[in-house]
């Protein structure tokens, strides 16, 4: 087979086996939604504080670790959830005090690097507290597949998708309709102006980081149930970056759309074209896709064009 026909063959395969393709798509959608969950946390924080929180992935990990750790020590699931939520709130307070407040006037790139430092710190700290072996996270939803309309669908993935959908809807309403949501948008737009309107910046930031932490719990549960709670979870943060590029850094629906595109794109590329080049395309596909996208549209699908005033 010449190289061109080899490249085109998968398209034939898709047409000839639509059921399988549907399954791959669904798998991609599910994976994409998992990424979106992580990206949501990013978007929240960026929308409200302008900080690009590289530590989002490790926050997901930390949340999952805490939850599992508590459950392992015998706490029943509801109690463990509440305690984990409190821990994430405490973490948000700590981050606001130790990282955000001292760096409030610095350039965004400094804040970004600070979140990288935070990532490493939390990774080490989490491992210190809860140990480094992989843990199983059982939330009572079996990781098994069911045939729906002739297509194989995974229960866990569907639950995750549903949860993500509900979360996004809730957050969208939160931002658009509630008073706090409006205040958050004001803060994201212009810190100083918001301050002068009497919006309590510090409280807002704690709220936002806490909410992002709670979103992190959800993401952590979903990811942890699927692949176990382990340190590669923090690498998910990196994967969320292409999602954000596609969807824009400030758009909640964008995080979903971006996640879907990345998830579906990755899975399809890996399944159909991966074998041509020895597999593991998933390692870089998302980033290269994001890069290609940036070249065409530097602000992403939903992002705002950055206009610099001279």
């Amino acid at each position, binding site marked *: 087979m010449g190289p061109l026909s080899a490249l085109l063959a998968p398209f034939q395969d898709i047409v000839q086996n639509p059921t399988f393709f549907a399954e791959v798509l669904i798998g991609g959608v599910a994976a994409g939604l998992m990424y979106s969950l992580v990206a949501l946390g990013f978007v929240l924080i960026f929308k409200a504080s302008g900080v*690009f929180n590289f530590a989002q992935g490790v926050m997901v990990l930390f949340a999952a670790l805490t939850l599992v750790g508590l459950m392992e020590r015998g706490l029943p699931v509801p109690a463990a959830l509440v305690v984990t939520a409190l821990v994430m709130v405490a973490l948000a307070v700590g981050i606001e005090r*130790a*990282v955000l407040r*001292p*760096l409030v006037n*610095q350039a*965004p*790139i*400094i804040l*970004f*690097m*600070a979140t*990288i*430092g*935070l*990532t*490493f*710190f*939390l*990774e*080490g*700290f989490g*491992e*210190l507290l809860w140990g*480094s072996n992989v843990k199983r996270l059982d939330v009572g939803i079996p990781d098994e597949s069911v045939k729906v309309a002739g297509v194989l669908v995974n229960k866990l993935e569907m639950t995750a998708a549903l949860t993500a959908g509900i979360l996004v809807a809730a957050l969208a309403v939160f931002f658009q309709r509630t008073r706090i949501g409006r205040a958050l948008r004001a803060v994201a737009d212009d810190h100083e102006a918001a301050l002068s309107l009497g919006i309590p910046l510090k409280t807002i930031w704690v709220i936002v980081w806490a909410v992002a932490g709670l979103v992190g719990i959800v993401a952590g549960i979903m990811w942890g149930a699927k692949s176990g709670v382990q340190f590669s979870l923090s*690498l998910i943060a*990196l994967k969320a*970056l*292409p999602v954000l*590029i596609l969807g824009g*850094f400030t758009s909640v629906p964008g995080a979903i759309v971006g996640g879907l595109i990345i998830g579906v794109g990755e899975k399809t590329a890996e399944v159909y074209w991966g074998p041509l*080049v*020895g597999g*593991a*395309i998933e*390692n*870089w596909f998302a*980033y*290269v896709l*994001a*890069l290609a996208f*940036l*070249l065409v549209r*530097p602000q992403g699908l939903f992002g705002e064009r950055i206009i*610099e005033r*001279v």
Partner: protein
Amino acid sequence: MIYREAGYFKTTYAADQAVFPILQDRIFVAALLVLAFLLPPLAFSEYWLQAVLIPFLVYALAALGLNILTGYAGQLSLGTGGFMAVGAYSAFKISTAFPDLNILLVFPLAGLAAAGVGLLFGIPSLRIKGFYLAVATLAAQFFLIWLFNKVPWFVNYAPSGTISAPPRTVFGVMVTGPEATAAARYVVALGLVVVFGWVAKNLVRGRVGRAWMAIRDRDIAAEIIGVRPLRTKLLAFGISSFYCGMAGAGLVFLYLGSAETLAFDINVSFLVLFMVIIGGLGSVLGSFLGAGFIILIPIFLTNVPHWLGLPMSVALQKQLELMIFGALILFFLIVEPHGLARLWQITKEKLRRWPFPY
């Protein structure tokens, strides 16, 4: 007093432009260099050479490279590991394909290969800025590592998937390969660092460095004075990757002896970024200080509890390392964003005036 800065007036612009304007400084540095070349090979233990000095020199090169790109030109890059890998694998292919080629030439050639790749991945930098560019460099990082993993040609079809430094000599002394002594490898590394460190200093203090800093500080204003953004950024990517490529080659040929792609993964990119942040963005001295600092922390953590009689498991050590790195980054960003280099400057100024407070 022997060391005196006061009363020494620079009477020519040439004197002002010099890297070490004060004569005592110049003598000091010259002596230090001579000492650096002679003392460690003769007097230091294998451990110090192998575990501290050689990695310090290799990572200092990488830190110089990243500092040029991120510290001077303001282009955030998370792809350092990938560019180092290009250098390492190029060096391997070149030296195995041309066994008679002097190994000292292989390093800059590997650097050139990495520079080429760097230029390619730098092209998007005209349209893409800031965090977005960082994500683009991640594309470089992950793609390059995948490439070196997947294509067996790069490892000369070795089943183990690793590359090893072939034995090579310079003036009859074995400098790479299993037979090479740490002392020999150290001298080669030091030579590379001295030469290319000097080159880096020359670049950043003149026309090119100013163009980079202009792009970094205010790229719109830079255009007004005639800086061409794409050309300047590409130059930064190219030269930065050259240094990272040499560092990668040094990592395998002079430090580890053999390596696989794991030695160049995303963690290395972060590690070098930490060196540059802690050492000081936009400072040649800072690159060295940062590299030394980061290299020493794990050494410290391994040895100090041992000296104090406290046992520490390897896992705990790793965890503390992560926490300390993270905390240090935060500390420096909050307290002294210009890093160790600036702290050093402040210390010098205070010493000048000591014991007078002003």
